[in-house]
């Protein structure tokens, strides 16, 4: 009797947990499923519970010269911003993780806290600066504004990665006569590669994601996909915006497929410890 009661309560608890889980899953996955439906929806009107299948809006979107120009701009500027960010940030991350020097904590904190600055406010001064440098409405200007978005990921994830590498391996390489550069490229870098890859992918998405700064700096000739989205939502039929939001979410899907193997919560959390 008492055992039966125990199982009943256990079963109830499990049912509640399952119910909560299903509700959460519906909340999170529902909109993603809509996205999937849109990808192939011709029109979706009440009272149909499912849309009618068609690819005509894809042809419409991909045939639009403004749209293809924005896609090209996004896939040129975001990789450029990611590479520039990697070149300037990875040495800094290495220094933060491996070298002891006065001011290390304060400087690392200054990188992390810069992400809390109100970005739109900064864009006023940045726009003035870029205007003086003749960089408004240029590719270089768009890349610079996107790099700002990537700094956090490019400092924080590599710092955590380098910190997680056993120092003895590097010292062993040094002891057998490898110079600092050789040690870095033949010992440290290969071990750090998965973490750096995750950082690169996050930085790419952060650059790709940038909308407001690019709108301010790149208008009217250097429009990226997120900026284009705004125009599409305002002045095109809904399926166009829906199809475009599928396009916008493709890079992150590719990211997940590529990085899932390397994507451990540790990479994100590690860099935050000072």
């Amino acid at each position, binding site marked *: 009797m008492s055992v039966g009661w125990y199982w009943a309560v256990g079963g109830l608890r499990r049912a509640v*947990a399952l119910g*909560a889980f299903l509700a*959460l899953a519906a*909340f*999170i996955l*529902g*909109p*993603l499923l*809509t996205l999937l439906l849109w990808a192939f929806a011709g029109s*979706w*009107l*009440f009272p149909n*519970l499912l849309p009618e299948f068609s690819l005509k809006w894809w042809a419409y979107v991909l045939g639009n010269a403004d749209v293809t120009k924005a896609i090209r701009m996004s896939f040129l500027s975001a990789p450029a911003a990611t590479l520039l960010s990697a070149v*300037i940030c990875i*040495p*800094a991350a290495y*220094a933060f993780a491996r*070298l*002891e*020097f006065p001011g*290390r904590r304060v400087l690392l904190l*200054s990188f992390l806290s*810069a*992400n*809390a*600055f*109100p*970005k*739109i*406010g*900064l*864009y*006023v*001064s940045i726009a003035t*600066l870029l205007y003086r440098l003749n960089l408004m409405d240029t590719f270089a200007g768009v890349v610079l504004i996107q790099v700002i978005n990537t*700094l956090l990921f490019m400092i924080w994830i590599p710092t955590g990665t380098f910190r997680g590498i056993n120092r003895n391996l590097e*010292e062993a390489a*040094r002891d057998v006569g490898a110079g600092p550069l050789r040690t870095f490229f033949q010992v440290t870098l290969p071990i750090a590669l998965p973490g750096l890859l995750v950082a690169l992918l996050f930085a790419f*998405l952060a650059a*790709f*994601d940038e*909308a*407001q700064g690019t709108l301010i700096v790149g208008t009217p000739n250097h429009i990226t*996909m*997120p900026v284009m*989205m705004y125009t599409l*939502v305002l002045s095109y039929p*809904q399926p166009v*915006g*829906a199809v475009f*939001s599928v396009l*916008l*979410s493709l890079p*992150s*899907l590719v990211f*997940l497929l590529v990085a899932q193997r390397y994507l451990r*919560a*540790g990479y994100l*959390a590690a860099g*935050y410890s000072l």
Partner: protein
Amino acid sequence: MQDQTEVRRFVASPVALARPAALRRRWRVQPYLFLLPSLAFLATFTYYPILSSLEMSLYRVTATVSHPTFTGLRNYAGLATDPIFRQVLRNSAEFLAGTVPVTVALALVLALLLNRAHALTTPFRTAFFYPTLLPLVGAAAIWLFVYTPGYGLIDVYLRAIVGGGVNWLGSPALALPAVMILTIWKNAGYYMLFYLAGLQTIPAELYEAGRLEGASGWQQFRAITFPLLGPTTLFVLLIASINAFQSVDQIWLMTGGGPDNTTNLLLFYIYQVAFMFFDLGKAAALTVFLLAVLMAIAALSFGVLERRIHYEV
């Protein structure tokens, strides 16, 4: 503690001792050389603009004034009597209170549910994390269409059940909650990742001890899991609060601050004042105000975080 091991390793390493003096001096400059490019970038594109905003907030700079005139604190005084600013503050507070606790709680629940070995754990973790990786503009567009009467998912299905399409984003009462729901959806998976990392650091022996003492699942959560996740929770709360104040893309795309300023948040108001009304002095004052709020939040949490971590070690 780490410093001690550092010192020990340094003393114990014959290579370090044998290093010539010139080489050691080079090593002291080297960290700053490594930092130079990124620091220069950071200074130019974040710290200089902040200082420049501080200065600009003391001037009257608008599209109609040819030369900026020094006006002291008048831009700040103007904010105090600006009814839209007061509404924006109210909206931002509501947005903060409506998104941060819910998102963080949801993230914790997701992490607890997915912190077990099961064939479906990884696919679900990945799927729940996916909204985080979507561009915010893309996510906002998805929800914009979900909410759109006559087109979106909610409307199509709700109409079948309740009847009558609700214009979520057009209603002053529902527009801000609608934007909040998108924000919660977008961020829960991100914070879940921090909680999953936090859960890994809790030793399994503690739960075994708890079970031996006959503690129920809920008691174990209250006595072990939640207290030991304290630093994670605090950290996630910090990031979530900063994110709440940094929200702008979704407002820009979904509502444009409307209807009747009911979804106008601080950062979007800065955008309006600077790039639509061209009142740069006022926009700078708003920027300084928001910066002060964000820095206060950061200082508060880092202070608490620091203390908590010391207690634990």
